[in-house]
């Protein structure tokens, strides 16, 4: 088996699993309980949050644990309209005073058109507007600048896209945001402007220091970095107000009530530690494997040429139905994705590939290979060979159809 879909899921590292194990058994206590063993668990939990925070240059108190990246994105976008100036869906007349320059205008947000559905679908609720990307998948800064009207309260741009691995210039975006904030202050426009970034795909491959990136909110996910599924986190800069995911016992600073997922968070912390230890080595390794694939594969068009994560290889076999390739490769024990795994299973064309200007037939022929820790170099050579085989077989089948058609008509 050769697994080339690490952007979809990663196996839990054995060391992570070992770290988690005691918290299912001997250390099962509810961190909120009063007796000493429970307090120890609470301390371990806080320490783990500290570790997660440390990995991104933050403090444990800035971290809200969630049940994955989707929930973290939902929580992050709830910041829109919660600075007190107005609320979503309220009638325009209830907002602000008549003298307010924003009187009667709904708040809104911006998001990169290539964002994951967990951002796009929430953004739609807030009347979000999409920011265009360039054909290489990078944000169109001019478009962002043009759309940063006074209504905008939040801008959401992922650090690395989940279908292409394209890395966005977060620091540059953050600089622009700061500029606009200052301008708003000068003009007396009292509306927040926050920068959110979904860093799920990049956590183990890039520098994700929140200060250097300049983000106010950042989404993380354990399942993409060899940690457990169902655990994520949102970095929340001091002073950002959010609407709770759930209310109840007041856990996670009152933003997400419910007994803490202690083993999950312990595992997440350990996974991030390991990711940081191996950050540079892994990048070099994946870059080399990517180079091998690109030189040994045949007859493809490379979609993500540059500014992308080292472990992402997105190819297009124009004229072939890539979904057929997925099933053929599956039979040969090679697991890959077409565009985004989610998009494929929903039967809709990838909005990401469409946004970078690919034609329908290019999108249909796109294959996403994401490399990771389950691979070794021999597997990469073997994968290239099998993919070449299968692509050739599919071309043969297609030319056979054409031949039989010409025979009939």
């Amino acid at each position, binding site marked *: 088996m050769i697994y080339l879909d690490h952007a979809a899921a990663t196996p839990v590292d054995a060391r992570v699993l070992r770290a988690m194990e005691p918290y299912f058994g001997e250390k099962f206590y509810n961190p909120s309980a009063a007796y000493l063993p429970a307090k120890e668990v609470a301390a371990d939990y806080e320490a783990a949050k500290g570790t997660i925070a440390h990995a991104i240059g933050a403090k444990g108190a800035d971290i809200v644990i969630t049940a994955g990246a989707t929930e973290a994105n939902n929580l992050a976008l709830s910041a829109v309209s919660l600075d007190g100036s107005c609320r979503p869906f309220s009638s325009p007349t209830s907002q602000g005073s008549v003298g307010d320059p924003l009187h009667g205008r709904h708040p809104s947000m911006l998001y990169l058109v290539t964002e994951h559905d967990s951002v796009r679908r929430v953004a739609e609720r807030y009347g979000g507007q999409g920011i265009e990307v360039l054909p290489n998948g990078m944000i169109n800064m001019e478009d962002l600048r043009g759309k940063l009207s006074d209504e905008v309260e939040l801008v959401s741009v992922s650090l690395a896209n989940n279908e292409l691995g394209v890395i966005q210039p977060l620091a540059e975006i953050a600089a622009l945001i700061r500029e606009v904030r200052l301008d708003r202050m000068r003009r007396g426009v009292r509306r927040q402007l926050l920068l959110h970034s979904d860093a799920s795909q990049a956590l183990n491959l890039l520098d994700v220091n929140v200060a250097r990136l300049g983000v106010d909110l950042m989404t993380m996910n354990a399942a993409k970095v060899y940690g457990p599924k169902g655990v994520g986190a949102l970095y929340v800069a001091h002073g950002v107000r959010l609407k709770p995911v759930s209310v109840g016992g007041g856990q996670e600073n009152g933003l997400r009530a419910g007994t803490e997922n202690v083993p999950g968070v312990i595992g997440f912390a350990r996974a991030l530690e390991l990711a940081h230890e191996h950050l540079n080595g892994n990048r070099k390794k994946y870059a080399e494997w990517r180079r091998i694939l690109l030189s040994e594969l045949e007859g493809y068009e490379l979609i993500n040429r540059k500014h992308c994560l080292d472990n992402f290889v997105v190819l297009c076999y124009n004229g072939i139905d890539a*979904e*057929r390739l997925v*099933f*053929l490769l*599956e*039979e040969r024990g090679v697991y890959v994705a077409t565009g985004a795994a989610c998009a*494929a*299973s*929903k*039967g809709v064309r990838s909005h990401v590939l469409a946004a970078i200007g690919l034609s329908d037939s290019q999108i249909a022929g796109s294959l996403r290979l994401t490399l990771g820790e389950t691979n070794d170099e021999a597997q990469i050579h073997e994968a290239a060979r099998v993919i070449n085989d299968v692509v050739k077989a599919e071309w043969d*089948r297609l030319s056979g*159809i054409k031949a*039989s058609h010409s025979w*009939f008509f």
Partner: protein
Amino acid sequence: MVMKTVYVGMSGGVDSSVAAMLLLEQGYRVVGVYMKNWSRDLPGMKCPWAEDLADAKRVAVKLGIDFLVWDFEEAYHDKVVDYMLDEFRRGNTPNPDVMCNQEIKFKLFYEKAMAAGADFIATGHYARVEREIPLFEEHIFRRGKYGATEPRNDGREGAFREQRVFSLPALLRATDENKDQTYFLYRISEEALAHTLFPIGGMMKPDVKKLAKERGLHNAYKKESMGVCFVGEVGMKDFLKEYIDIQPGEIREIESNRVLGYHEGAVFYTIGQRHGLYISGGLPYYVVKKDVANNIVYVSKNLNSDELWTDELRLRDILLRQFDGDFLRDGVAFARRYGESAPHTSVVTSGSPQKVPSELPSHEIQVRLRHRAPLIPVKFDGEVLHFDEKIKRPASGQSAVLYDGEICLGGGIIA
């Protein structure tokens, strides 16, 4: 020999997967088609279409055949869903699968496949087609079996059998009696049936599953396809709530006319139904009557209530199948030429129901009142089914399907 082309409707389930595989092994050029009839999620229920599509496609790819997705959503909505909702609004309990086969699978799909160059269509239904002339033989396209001077089988005097016609095939019950699906197929057109293959109709379901496993198609192993094309039994209530304006109303005891309780909407209830009355204590109540106009559901504790039992059933939208030819079964040839002096003549062509001459049902035939229900002996006078013994009254809107032994004679909708 020219390789014949078959377009197979593939749902992603084990039956249609094995059907496609068998056709391929029999030497056909096979094209798999996923019919996209419904893709809307309902509240609290995710429509499985994308998964089904992926399963169907995976099988097609493993078999190395072409695979197409044909979008019939609009037609399905117009012909099947609207029909179903109208029937419910009238207080009937329709069977959307029957309509789906008549209007979509064996009409739209059939027509589109033939236009695309198919010689046959195929599905994974458990049913059989009996043709008097074996497939692949050259004379299949030649004149009718009885020669150019043979009278047509439609009873018209002086008319002559046309050349180059199929003799009309018969629809037969499946070999696996437990899985027989002719109940859902009795309304499909003769023309479509003449061009239809049911590759697994002669197999037992466990053998189909076994074969799938042996040939590595066990990924097609899934839940059984649902009772209703797209909602399933459980989801029907939620589905109706979305589309039909439903008001709560009274539940009355039929004998006393006393109000016993309240219901969510009369359309949800079916005659004979025992559950969901929200009446506690004592013997269970049964729905015996629905007054949809006044939104009242009548119930009774009396299982012997006259409302629950009948020895007559009036049918509407009757469709009796037309078929002819000499069929060879178990080495014995027997003639079935409906329209001549066959045992019970029915000269009704699909879509234009006519009264059957009343003297003709000379011997008893059988009727099936629900999918998988036992066959019940019956006499049919062309409008009304007459039973020897009283039967539990089936829901109006369901189909009554007639059989002469294993031959499906057609049927009608219970009025």
